[in-house]
Structures are given as C-alpha cells and as structure tokens.
C-alpha cells in the first residue's frame, strides 16, 4: 500500500502467525490498522447472519478434537486413565518428545537466523540464489527426507537421527520469516549502534537479534508443533514420540483407551508450546516510526570468513536437499520404467490432486467468513472464533483423526469413511493456513472502495465481488496453495479416515516404505516433491513481497 512500513501491531494482533505453517509472520495484517479505522469510521452494519452462522459452526466444529480428548478422558475414569498415563513407557515417550523439542527448536532457530543473515546481510556472492534454495526443503515432506536419509545411512536411529532429520526439514520455518523481517529492519538503528562503538557482532546480538524476536518465536513455535505431530519421519528412524506411539496403539487397538490417554498428554504438550510462545513475545513494539521509506539495509563483507559462510549455506543445502534428492534419484534409476507401469502411480497422483484441490477450495470458503468478521467487524468474539481454529490446527493430525473416526462411527454414520469427512478433517487441520492469508488480503482492501461502488449503485454482493474480491484474489490463491501443500503431504489422518480403496501419494509411499520397497516408493516421493515445489516457491515469493522493495 503506502510506502511506509506496515506497522507490526502489538500483542493481540500477532495471534496470526503461530500455528500456521510456513507463513512468515511478515504477512500478519499489514494494514490492519487502516482497515480497522475504515470499519470504525464507516457505517457499522451488522454482519450477515449467514456469515456469522458459518463462522460459528466452523469454529465450534474446530473444538471437536479437543472436546473428544477431554470427554474420553472423563469417560475413561481417573483410575484407568492414571494407570495409562503414569507408566514407564509414557515417561520414555515424554523424555524422547521433550528431548526432541528442546534440542531441535533452538537448532532450527540458530540455523534459520544464521542463514537469513548470511543471505540477507552479507556480500556473499550468490546470496540471492541461496535465498531461494534454502526455502526448498519445505517442498520435501519430512517423511520423504527421512526416507532419503535412511536410504543413505540405513543404521540411523534414535534421538539424534530424529533431530538431524527434523532440523533439516523444519529450519526454513524460522529462516523464511527471519529473512523477510531482516529485509524490513531500518538500517539506521544498526548504524546508530555502530557509531556508538558497537562492533559487527555487537550490532548483530544487541540490535538485529532482538528485533527478530517475533519471527524467531513464531517460526520456533511452528517447528515445535511439527515435531509433536510428525509420524512418518520418526517412525522410519525408530524414534518413538507420543505421535508414533499413538499410531502404534491405533494399529493395535483402533481407538483404545491407551491411545486416547497418550493423545491427552500430547495435547497438553501442544498447549504448553502455544502458551509458552505467546508468553515469550513480550510487549515491545518493533515497528519503525517515522516518515518516508527505510533505506535498503547495507550488506557486510565477510572478508576472510567467506569460505565459512559458503560452507554453512552449501552444507545446509546439500544436507537438506541434496541427500533426499540423491536418494530418490538413485532409487528411481534403479527402478527404471517398471515402477511407473502399474497404473497406481497415476491414479494416486490424480486422487491426491483431487483431494488437494477440493480441500483447498472448501477450506478457503469456510475460512472466509471468519476472516471477514475478524477484519470488518473486529470484536472480542471474532478474535475468539479465530483463536479456536489456531488451537485445533496445532493438534497433531492423529488426534484430530482419532476424534473424527470415533465421532463419525458413533454419531454420524452416513459420513463415516466418506470423502466429505476427509475434507472436513483437512479443513480442521489446515484452516488457519487459509485464514492468515485471507485475513491479511482482506485487510489490505480499503472498505471505502467497496462503499464507493455501492454508492454508485452496485448491489452489495456485486460491489464485494467486483472490488474487494479482485483485490484479495492473490491472497486467496496463496491461502489455497498452502492448504493444498498440507493435504498433499498429509498421511495419518488420510490413512484413518479415507474411503476404502483410497490411494493418495502419501499413503502409497508409506505402504511401500513399510515393505522396505524403497524402489517402489521413489515415484511417489518424487511426485510429492513436484507437487510441493511451486507452492514452496510461491511462499518464498510472498515472503519477499511484504518487504520493502
């Protein structure tokens, strides 16, 4: 919009970034302030009851998984529940899961910030190329990355293997928002520090790093939530977390009490992360105040440290992209044409694209009323509806899936094992991805334009479609793309809920990997990467767009 920096608004607004995957917190309501002013200043009509009803229904539905965990916990009874929770096995899982989070999150943060600084603030030749390449790991699903590593080093197992694979898969979740934020920092603050005697390191630690607090925290939260919910990547290296244990219990008992008890503990861990992140944000303002455009930040020369910079960036790229890619290619070459020939590959591809497209469209449609209320009719209630959905999407897919399997078998049989139920689950899991983007896009459209169109005689709907919808179409596209990406690589919920005979790329990949048929799994791995790449690039491009040009 205007050339000034988008105000990074204080606490409540920043509810946006957390639970959603790769959206750089740069995108939170860039000009929410102005839209809000419009809404307040303009005639405040009541929102359409239909929109309110949809927003309410979707949000209440979002409480289903959490409600399920609580209700089954109560129904199980304290005696049995405590026997299932307070046992050595749960202790092991807790140690593993907490250990994984405690080691991986700081690692991802350090690597993400370091990489963002190197590509954004140094004169390293080729830095712009690395800027794109380092977003690429997001196109490789963690379980495909794990498959690549296990193919290269079959003996990988345990905590450190889990840390290795998770770090390489998830560091871009910190890197992307940090890189975007770095581009927007006002260099004058750094220069002031420099003129007061701070050296390069001093400036980095005392000036730059504190200003990256929000993207680091937001990205780290995402990493943490991914760690808690990932199944395939850790199962492949025999590292047991709560999620892998729940899946095993599911395999042994369907939805037995032990699985539900573990799910309860896992949900508590998620809540702990969510609360911890919002508590750690603090109340400082990070927005640049002042008129005019900030200058483009200056880049530093690395001098003799340049080779080290290359080693870091190059090494990161080789480990996160090179290893899985090499493995996939190696198996593809070994398999030749025959692994593509059985017709299942094409079918799985089409089914996956179908689920992805339908899921993306439905999710965006259902997210729209919530985003609309949040932007045009901001209130405590609207914020409440919004946060419910963030909460649900922070729950691991296996928990959401267990809840929906049970509820649909018991209470809504006609929906059980239907495509509709799978789509509903995707909506619950990925709604915030759509919400964040739709909301930001909507906030950028001055409501005055729409009102002008109405005053010139357009029907309200026509005015909305002709003016507002056209402005925020790119955001809607990004929203849909993100949901699509989530669905393409979704494994556990699809396995549990899909109609019989469903074969998605992720399901087929996993079935082949379980038979240690790595050759047969390769085409599915490749296709998942191919489907994810454009979306990943879009993410990267958008993270740039929000920065000062």
């Amino acid at each position, binding site marked *: 919009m205007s050339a000034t920096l988008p105000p990074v608004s204080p606490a409540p607004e920043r509810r946006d970034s957390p639970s959603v995957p790769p959206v750089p917190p740069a995108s939170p309501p860039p000009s929410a302030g102005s839209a809000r002013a419009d809404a307040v200043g303009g005639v405040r009509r009541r929102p359409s009851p239909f929109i309110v009803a949809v927003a309410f229904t979707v949000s209440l539905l979002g409480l*289903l998984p959490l409600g399920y965990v609580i209700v089954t916990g109560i129904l199980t009874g304290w005696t049995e529940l405590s026997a299932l929770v307070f046992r050595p096995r749960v202790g092991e899982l807790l140690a593993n899961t907490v250990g994984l989070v405690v080691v991986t999150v700081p690692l991802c943060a350090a690597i993400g910030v370091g990489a963002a600084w190197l590509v954004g603030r140094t004169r390293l030749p080729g830095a712009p190329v690395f800027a794109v390449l380092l977003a690429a790991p997001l196109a490789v699903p963690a379980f495909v990355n794990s498959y690549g590593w296990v193919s290269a080093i079959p003996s990988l197992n345990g905590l450190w293997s889990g840390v290795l694979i998770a770090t390489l898969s998830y560091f871009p979740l910190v890197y992307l928002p940090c890189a975007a934020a770095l581009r927007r920092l006002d260099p004058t603050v750094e220069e002031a520090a420099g003129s007061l005697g701070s050296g390069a390191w001093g400036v980095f630690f005392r000036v730059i790093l504190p200003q990256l607090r929000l993207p680091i925290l937001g990205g780290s939260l995402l990493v943490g939530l991914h760690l808690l919910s990932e199944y395939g990547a850790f199962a492949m290296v025999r590292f047991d977390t709560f999620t892998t244990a729940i899946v095993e219990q599911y395999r*042994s008992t369907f939805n037995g009490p032990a699985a539900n008890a573990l799910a309860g503990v896992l949900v508590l861990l998620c809540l702990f992360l969510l609360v911890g992140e919002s508590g750690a944000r603090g109340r400082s303002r990070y927005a640049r105040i002042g008129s005019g455009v900030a200058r483009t930040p200056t880049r530093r020369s690395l001098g003799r440290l340049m080779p080290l910079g290359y080693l870091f960036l190059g090494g990161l790229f080789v480990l996160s992209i090179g290893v899985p890619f090499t493995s996939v290619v190696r198996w593809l070459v070994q398999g030749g044409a025959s692994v593509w020939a059985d017709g299942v590959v094409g079918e799985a591809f089409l089914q996956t694209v179908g689920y992805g497209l339908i899921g993306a469209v439905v999710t965006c449609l259902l997210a729209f009323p919530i985003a609309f209320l949040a932007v045009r009719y901001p209130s405590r209630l609207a914020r409440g509806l919004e946060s419910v959905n963030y909460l649900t999407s922070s729950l691991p897919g296996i928990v959401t899936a267990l809840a929906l399997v049970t509820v649909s*078998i018991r209470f809504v049989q006609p*929906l059980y094992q239907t495509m*509709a139920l799978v789509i*509903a689950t995707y909506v619950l899991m990925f709604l915030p991805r759509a919400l964040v983007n739709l909301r930001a896009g909507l906030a950028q459209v001055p409501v005055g334009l729409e009102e002008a169109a109405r005053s010139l005689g357009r029907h309200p709907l026509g005015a909305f479609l002709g003016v507002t919808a056209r402005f925020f179409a790119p955001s809607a596209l990004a929203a849909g793309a993100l949901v699509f990406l989530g669905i393409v690589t979704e494994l556990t919920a699809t396995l549990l809920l899909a109609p019989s*005979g469903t074969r998605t790329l992720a399901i087929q990949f996993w079935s082949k990997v379980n038979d240690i048929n790595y050759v047969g799994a390769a085409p599915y791995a490749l296709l998942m990467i191919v489907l994810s790449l454009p979306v990943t690039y879009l993410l990267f491009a958008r993270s740039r767009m929000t920065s000062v040009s």
Partner: protein
Amino acid sequence: MIVGIAGVTLLGATACSANGATSGSTTPSDGSPSGSITVYNAQHEELTQAWADEFTKETGVEVTLRNGEDPELGNQLVQEGTASKADVFLTENSPAMSLVDNAGLFAPVDKATLAQVPDQFQPSSGNWTGIAARSTVFAYNPALLSEDQLPASLLDLADPSWKGRWAASPSGADFQAIVSAMLELKGESATTAWLKAMKTNTVAYKGNSTVMKAINAGEIPGGVIYHYYWYADQAGTGENSANTRMHYFKNQDPGAFLSLSGGGVLASSPNPVAAQAFLAFITGKAGQTILQTGTSFEYPIVDGVSANPALLPLGDLDAPKIDPSQLNGTLVTDLMTQAGLL
C-alpha cells in the same frame, strides 16, 4: 458437542457429495455373484490384490481393499458394528478373527467352503476359516551368532544374556499373535514375566522386514519374525537377507507357532453372495495355488495344494497344537502395554 456434530453434517453437505466406498450391490436372482465387495484387508496387500484380480477375472465382481493391521481393522469392525461397509475380513493372524467372531459380527461360512479346509485350520464356531499359514522363525546373522549360540526356545530370549541382542516388531500384529500363542501355551503370569524381560532385552523395530534388514546389516544378531519375509527377499534381490539364516524352533515350542491367517464374511455384508464366493475362491484350488506359486511364500492350507517347494514342508515344522479360536489378542495388547512395549 451436539452443535459440533451438526457442524460435521453441514461441512459434509458443503464439502462434496461423494459417498465414499463402493458398497456392494445385490445379487441377481440366479444366485451367481456380481456387483462389488469391500474387503477389510490385513493380509499383505500384494497377496490379496492377486486374489482379488483373479477373482474379478473369474466372476466380474469388483473388489475394493481397505488395508490395515489385524487388530486395527478387527477393532474397527467391532466399533462399526452392523453399520460396517465391509463385506469380507482377511487377516494375517487369527486373534483379530476371534475378536470379530466374539462380537457376533460374522455370518457362518458356507458349508462348501468349510469342507475345502482341513478341520485343524478352522475354528469350532464355523464363522470364519483359515486361508493361509505362516511359521515363526528366529532369523540371525551367522557372522554375529554361531549355530551353537542359537536359542533352543523362544522363552530363552528372556535370559539376561540376550540383552540388546535380539529384535522384534512388537507393534505389529504378527508379533502380537506369537505372544498370544505363548499366552495360550504358558499362561498369563509366565507371559507377563517374559514380556517384561523382552522390554529390557529387545530392540524394537517397526515391521518384520525392517527387523530382517537390521539383522542383515549386522545391526543386531537376531530377531523373531515370520518365515516368508526371508523367502520373499531371497526370491527377489536378496539385498535384505543375504547375510541371514533362519532357525526354526520346532519341538512344539511357542517359537514354532504356526499362525493361521483367517477370512470371514460379515453378517452385515451388503453383498453376501459375492462375499461368500470370494472366501470360497481364496480357499479353493485357484486361490491356494496363488500361495504356492506367487511371491507371498505363505503356506497354503488345503489338501492337494502343497507349499512352495522352497519352503520347509508344513509337516516338518513341529508346531504346537493350538486352537486358533482361543487366541486372545486384546489381553495380549493389554499385557504388552503394561510391559511398556506399546
């Protein structure tokens, strides 16, 4: 909660009109199978797909598979009850068949089908039947374990000297079936003690193939798996079994357990004629021959179809005598959960 459920309905209506799995259509009046069936399949997908393809070729009946693990699909059927969309249930081991049978969800198997199967391979209830069999083995890496160091009995693996030296896939239905045999043969307290020792001794992998691969790579000296993983890999590239040998426990040891894969028709099947025909096909000459000549290397169980010549003959296994309908999978899962294995 109620509003949430209303939400599900609304969402469903909004989402799309797909109505999921193909449900069976009824059979024409002449009694020959037609339409389609849904099979809850816990057997290896490749094997069941081979059966299904051949069956479709013979009868024109379309077969849709829902793949999963024995106890997962068994418990799922119990939860679904009579509203299940499944026509047929196939497992790798019998405990899950008993689970569904005890819940009263199976229709009696056609007499003609039962007549094809020897008595020892069917439960007394007559509500399901054996369809194939597999033998427990101890796979080992001869570079790490000499023949004289091999365990004489499965029970020996509880000994502290085996700590960290043997592998299994405790989360798998296969291993859980082996434990159910031990439970049947040795009782609950002996089994509980053995499982506790196992928790200390064993290295847990996910899947029998993975166990064998680890033994082959020398990560661990030995492990408890079923026989056919080894033969299937040998028949292929051998890349995951070349450095391994198999040790059969015999002597009616719990470790010589011959696990019976089962098949049954759901009482709620929308297409019982085609479902019964599928079961008859699997236990008939054509279906069993797929076991003999195919890549599954599981044992055929009917008279007149011998095992793949590469296998040790069924009669030489000296397996313990166990009534397949007595195996209790639920108790096994509970005991294994208590022992910290799950």
